[in-house]
């Protein structure tokens, strides 16, 4: 587990004193994110991130770190900018013409938005799983082999076979599909499709996996399977997961970040967030007063 920076006073005031608040549109936000957003050593770090869609600002001054092999959950009411934030981590927002990201985002100390950083190579390192399962209309095998083929990760067929098998195995799908690898991925059930998408993402061995509500289209049993899978994957991967289910966040994540209308209100150890939230907005959300 990563050590949290609870005693670096430069960035964040500590102690139990109520931090400074600011009132925006009638809502009291903390001036700086409450809890432990920053880590001593981190895989990724985000500083002063603002995201705009045209003139409209969707993310306001977010500061947060993600540690190596950590699972961080992002929660918050609908439209608060969770997807926007997670998509700016691997520059998926580049495909939205009006979208502009400012601030410092780094992966292993490398600036994600510098001109030297290639978005294609970046996305190979920071993979993504989407809300709705989106297998390509190709065979199961080709779906998983898609990434490795793109990036030239396998020089021989046998190597590719191996990658496909290990990825599917890790995604917990191998046993179910090993006899029908040549059948279309779109023919699988929803839960299987989502696991196929996870297999597809880990086939290129990303360092970080971003998941945007990966279970929202699935039934409880399929959801449970994916959650198990996330727990397993967290041994080898760094994972950021957006979810609407607080139970899910509680089950899979180490830390939880609460967003509210584009602002990061509180980041704390998951247990803490769900038992003793520090900010009243978080508390209101957890106790179901809005969301």
């Amino acid at each position, binding site marked *: 587990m990563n050590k949290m920076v609870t005693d670096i006073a430069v960035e964040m005031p500590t102690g139990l004193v109520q931090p400074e608040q600011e009132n925006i549109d009638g809502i009291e936000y903390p001036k700086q994110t409450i809890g432990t957003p920053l880590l001593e050593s981190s895989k990724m770090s985000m500083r002063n991130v603002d995201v705009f869609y045209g003139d409209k600002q969707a993310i306001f001054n977010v500061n947060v770190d993600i540690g190596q092999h950590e699972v961080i959950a992002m929660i918050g009411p609908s439209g608060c900018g969770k997807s926007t934030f997670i998509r700016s981590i691997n520059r998926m927002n580049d495909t939205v013409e009006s979208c502009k990201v400012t601030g410092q985002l780094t992966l292993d100390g490398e600036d994600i938005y510098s001109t030297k950083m*290639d978005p*294609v*190579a970046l996305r*190979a*390192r920071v993979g993504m799983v989407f809300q709705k399962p989106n297998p390509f209309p190709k065979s199961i095998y080709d779906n998983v082999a898609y990434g490795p083929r*793109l*990036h*030239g*990760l396998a020089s021989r067929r046998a190597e590719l076979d191996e990658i496909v098998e290990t990825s599917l195995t890790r995604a917990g799908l191998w046993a179910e599909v090993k006899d029908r690898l040549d059948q279309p991925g779109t023919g699988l059930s929803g839960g299987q499709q989502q696991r196929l998408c996870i297999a597809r993402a880990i086939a*290129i*061995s990303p*360092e970080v996996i971003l998941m945007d509500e990966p279970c929202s289209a699935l039934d409880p049993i399929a959801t449970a399977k994916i959650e198990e899978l996330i727990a397993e994957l967290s041994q*080898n991967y760094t994972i950021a997961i957006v979810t609407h289910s607080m139970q899910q966040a509680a089950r899979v994540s180490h830390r939880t970040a609460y967003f509210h209308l584009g602002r990061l209100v509180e980041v704390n150890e998951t247990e803490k967030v769900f038992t003793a939230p520090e900010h009243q907005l978080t508390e209101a959300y957890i106790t179901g007063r809005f969301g």
Partner: protein
Amino acid sequence: MTNLNKSRAEQIQSSLAKRYRAEKRFQMYGYAAIAFGLLCVVILFTDIVSKGYKAFGQTYIQLEVTYDASTLGITDVNDSQQLALADFHGIVKKALKSRFTDVSGRKAKRDLYGLISNGAGYTLRDRLVANPELLNQTETLWLVADDDIDTYYKSIGSDAGAFTGRMSEQRQGWVDQLVESNDVEMRVNRNFFTQGDSREPELAGIRGAAMGSLFTLIITLALSFPIGVAAAVYLEEFAPCNRWTDLIEVNINNLAAVPSIIFGLLGLAIFINFFHVPRSVPVVGGLVLTLMTLPTIIISSRAAIKAVPPSIREAAIGVGASPMQVVLHHVLPLAMPGMLTGAIIGMAQALGETAPLLMIGMVAFIVDVPGGFTDPATVLPVQIFLWADSPERAFVEKTSAAIMVLLAFLILMNTLAVILRKRLERRWL
């Protein structure tokens, strides 16, 4: 793990340059495709405009004409019988002879008389009828030049050099002489807009074809719009879900893609051969084009009806309106702009159509401007086809000009459709 990541990253990095080159190449293809398409538009329009714009001007030659009664062979200006037979071209010939006195030999004379168009005689007759006191008087007049002269005069000073295809040295000399004395002039070509077809390029106009197109389109619109809207209303609002409805639907979609010439065959076999409707008349043309544009209109009308929110129907039914009242009071008024847009686009399609009209004989050479739905007529695109086939060089210019007129009408109609559609969009948002 970190090592593994490092090597993966390197692997990925190594092929990146190549992948980006492929990306660039692909974008280049796309760019080239767009550029090619746009270039085609530009070339097409420049080609036609550069060939055709000169047709809006016409060369006139100034001559001193004497309305000599004996040459004309008349005694009484008010006798229409005499006027009809009078030799007006004779006085033009005389005028030319007195202008170029040194011309001798039959061929040379024929060349000389050919400087002025045959149509000049009609101009003189009209003048004389309007001013009977001109008989045996002399006046200086601008007369329409022959098409050879026109072509030659227009091409003087062009990059390619003057076009002397049908101009002997001698004729060129005469024209040069006339130019020298300021007796040649370029004027607006009124014939082009006021006359019907003619074998003489300088007398040929598009009025006849334009009127033919108008009559044909009126018939087409009057039939295809109500029928198309009714069919669309039936299919969208009343049709039960059964085989017959499916058949109608599939049928309409297929019919929309049947080659237009097939509709011509239908018109020929049914209207002309079976019902013995006369050939070459706007009524038949309109009927054939109705059948041809009907699928287009039905499809777009259905789209317009589909766009009417179901909540409006429910609201009307909720207050006890019958299905017919729902359609007449709510659906049709709301869908009307969309239907009109579809109708205009269908009419534009009909206006440009040629092949089926060839089949039903609207391809005859017709001089008179049609005055009604059952007069023999041709239409603009067929006129273009006929002129394009004519050997005279002057017709190339006329054809291009007719194309410009046709395109102008089409652009007008499409602009109208776009404006309607814009208004419609605003209303729904």
